[in-house]
């Protein structure tokens, strides 16, 4: 393992951990601007996490060890996922043992533990949230896999850095298959990260909430880890999108070590644009009823399948 690989890996993890709450703050700020509200501070997610870490945890009676362990497992899964995704450089040692399918598996592991922890206490809201979370998950996962398969077919590999390198070095052209899968990926991103139209991150209304219902029983450091993991998940999804559909500016194997530093401001620009787009989508679209969520995700899957068909039939 070369020093540049270790530096790239560490830098990616540090940037992901540090920038994930900032990204959430940026999305919230953009949403507030678009809705003519006074915008919250960009640093509010950090303050929230810091405040929660300083509080004493209150744990419900009858909570098993699983309930206490779940936040650490979910957070660890998100951190490892951030280490697999080539957000700034493709020289990542972790990717030699985990490809894009393993990444989907990591995200699924986090979801399963979150759902198990929500059901562990036995409250109605927790069970309701867990069931809804799993419903969204099992519909979004095939669509995400299909999106990754299309990119894998184009690049002839399932390793995310290799996919990114291959797509970044391609000549500019029209790729209808990638356009369809980009739409599918955007829909999956919205659903998986509990954003409008599938879920509303700003509400605690029992009839509509999905993700928040699974966190109701958590407090203090456990809640802080869960919130941080949710921010990391959004950051990771954004970086998967950049790796598959906007792969330019990433430090590749052939580039100089200085390219790694140059990729940091470019990542910031991409994140700023993605956050603004996410806020715009959330502002112009209405929240779907929970029972319409399968239709939304079925459409995402259809787009991904269309992308696959277009690639297989036309080679484009």
């Amino acid at each position, binding site marked *: 393992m070369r020093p540049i690989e270790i530096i790239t890996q560490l830098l990616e993890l540090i940037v992901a951990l540090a920038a994930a709450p900032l990204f959430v703050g940026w999305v919230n700020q953009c949403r507030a601007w678009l809705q003519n509200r006074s915008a919250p501070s960009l640093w509010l997610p950090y303050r929230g996490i810091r405040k929660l870490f300083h509080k004493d945890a209150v744990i419900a009676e009858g909570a098993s060890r699983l309930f206490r362990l779940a936040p650490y497992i979910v957070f660890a899964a998100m951190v490892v996922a951030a280490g697999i995704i080539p957000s700034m450089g493709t020289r990542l040692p972790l990717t030699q043992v985990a490809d894009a399918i393993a990444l989907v598996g990591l995200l699924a592991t986090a979801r399963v533990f979150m759902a198990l922890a929500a059901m562990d206490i036995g409250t109605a809201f927790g069970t309701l949230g867990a069931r809804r979370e799993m419903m969204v998950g099992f519909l979004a996962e095939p669509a995400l896999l299909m999106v990754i398969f299309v990119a894998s077919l184009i690049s002839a590999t399932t390793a995310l850095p290799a996919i990114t390198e291959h797509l970044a070095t391609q000549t500019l*052209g029209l790729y209808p*298959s990638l356009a369809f899968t980009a739409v599918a990926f955007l829909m999956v991103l919205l659903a998986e990260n509990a954003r409008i139209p599938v879920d509303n991150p700003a509400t605690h209304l029992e009839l509509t909430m999905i993700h928040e219902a699974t966190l109701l029983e958590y407090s203090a450091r456990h809640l802080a880890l869960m919130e941080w993991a949710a921010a990391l998940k959004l950051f990771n999804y954004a970086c998967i999108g950049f790796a598959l559909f906007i792969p330019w500016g990433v430090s590749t194997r052939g580039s100089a070590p200085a390219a790694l530093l140059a990729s940091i401001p470019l990542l910031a620009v991409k994140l700023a644009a993605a956050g603004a787009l996410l806020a715009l989508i959330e502002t112009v679209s209405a929240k779907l009823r929970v029972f319409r969520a399968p239709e939304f995700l079925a459409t995402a899957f259809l787009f991904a399948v269309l992308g696959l068909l*277009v690639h297989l039939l036309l080679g484009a």
Partner: protein
Amino acid sequence: MAGVPLDVQLLNLCAALLLLLSFAMLSQRRIVNLVNLLALQGTVLFIATLLIASSADSRSTGTLSRCSTSPARCWSEC
């Protein structure tokens, strides 16, 4: 897509759009939407035929396509 001419890329795009429109037509419940999608499909076919005509340097194919699909599209839009 390296080395593929632009007109072939555009034709591929048209083919992909046709595929998308076909699936969109399958999911329609109202006949008006279906007719609108059919009109849109006619437009995409028209563009595709024009592209082929221009790349093959054949004026007759383009004119024939324009003559056949444009009135059909106008009729269905009305």
